[in-house]
């Protein structure tokens, strides 16, 4: 028996514990099924409310996509450099991207990470989704950590990441279509480029045209995908791919 076999036996562990509370599970399952049947009827009302809320809440002077988020008001633990606006808004939040000091002790060699945050109108960064490399170095030429779209705490975050090098154009393929990222140099080092893909291009919702989805299966067809990442400089030359690390 190999070390790995022994470890797998340990993972299986003792077979004990009480049986499932089937009455409770089925009761809750029935209630959930009933709620889902009515969910569609309420969506339209929620959308209308969200639009009204957005129009009335956001003033005209908020930065354009790619513009600096009001630095003086930024209040986010560990953020590093200027947060920039993505133009993606939901209710009273706008998604901004910036970098952060990675102090995760599980990754002692990775000091740099990037994050997308739901920023409030007063500039404060609320919920953030962080992403950072798995293997060092975190500053080698090319792509690094890339986070796929996610819904965290009811906020949609786009796919985003960073590139080290003079990238002027970043493209990829998502669900068979070529998509182009928005990008901006990082304030602390212009050789580092922060980029993100608008949610309309790399979206997190299920691909309803995927055959697997139409068959009702839960498969990769329901996941956002991002392949064929390419970076080009201002002269149109293809730059090194590096080590893209896509986290979903």
């Amino acid at each position, binding site marked *: 028996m190999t070390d790995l076999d022994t470890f797998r036996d340990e993972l299986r562990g003792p077979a004990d514990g009480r049986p499932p509370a089937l009455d409770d599970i*089925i009761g809750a399952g029935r209630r959930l099924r009933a709620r889902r049947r009515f969910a569609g009827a309420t969506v339209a009302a929620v959308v209308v409310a969200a639009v009204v809320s957005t129009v009335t809440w956001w003033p005209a002077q908020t930065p354009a996509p790619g513009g600096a988020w009001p630095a003086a008001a930024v209040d986010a633990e560990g953020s590093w450099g200027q947060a920039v606006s993505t133009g993606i808004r939901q209710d009273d939040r706008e998604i901004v991207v910036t970098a952060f000091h990675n102090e995760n002790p599980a990754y002692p060699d990775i000091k740099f990470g990037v994050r997308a945050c739901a920023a409030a109108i007063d500039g404060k960064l609320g919920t953030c989704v962080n992403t950072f490399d798995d*293997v060092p170095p975190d500053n080698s030429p090319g792509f690094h950590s890339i986070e796929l779209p996610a819904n965290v705490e009811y906020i949609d975050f786009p796919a985003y990441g960073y590139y080290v090098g003079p990238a002027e154009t970043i493209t990829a393929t998502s669900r068979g279509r070529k998509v182009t990222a928005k990008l901006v140099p990082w304030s602390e080092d212009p050789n580092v480029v922060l980029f993100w893909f608008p949610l309309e291009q790399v979206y997190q919702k299920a691909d309803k045209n995927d055959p697997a989805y139409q068959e009702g299966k839960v498969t990769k067809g329901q996941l956002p995908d991002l392949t064929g990442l390419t970076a080009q400089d201002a002269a149109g030359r293809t730059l090194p791919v590096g080590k893209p690390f896509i986290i979903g």
Partner: protein
Amino acid sequence: MKGPFMGRGDAEFAEFAAGCFHRLRRAAVLLTGDAGQAEDAAQAALVKTYAAWRRVRRQDPYAYTRRVMINHLKDQWRRPLKEDPYEQERIPERPAAADVADDVTRQQWLMAALGKLAARERAVVVLRHYFDLSEQQVAAELGVAVGTVKSLNSRALGKLRITLDPAEPVTNGVSL
């Protein structure tokens, strides 16, 4: 099962749930280290499976339930700066192989050691070595590249000081 409305579909679901509950709960324990949270996660996944039972019963309900549970737990490890809750200590030395009396000690080591892994590493270890999924299946389950799975698996087993079987290829790079 004593519910008054138990039809054929309910009976089928009850049999399914009873058959997979312990395995799901064990996986959730390995993923969270918390027995109460694990039981909640396994039950929550079964609730969602019941709600979708007519749709999933003829497919692979176990895979569906496992995926729902992983997603349920994944939401917690995606959150910023909570991914690896204050992991400061080194992974303890692994107890040597010994008699059955040491099983408790070995389980204690296992939970402590898993608790020191980064959340993504822990997820890969559980999916790969507890659920016995292929690297491609783990990648699809977590929505990451196969190279990422290889990298995380290699790193996690290294931290756990598990010697890989020669048949287990190790790739340290990340590919698309």
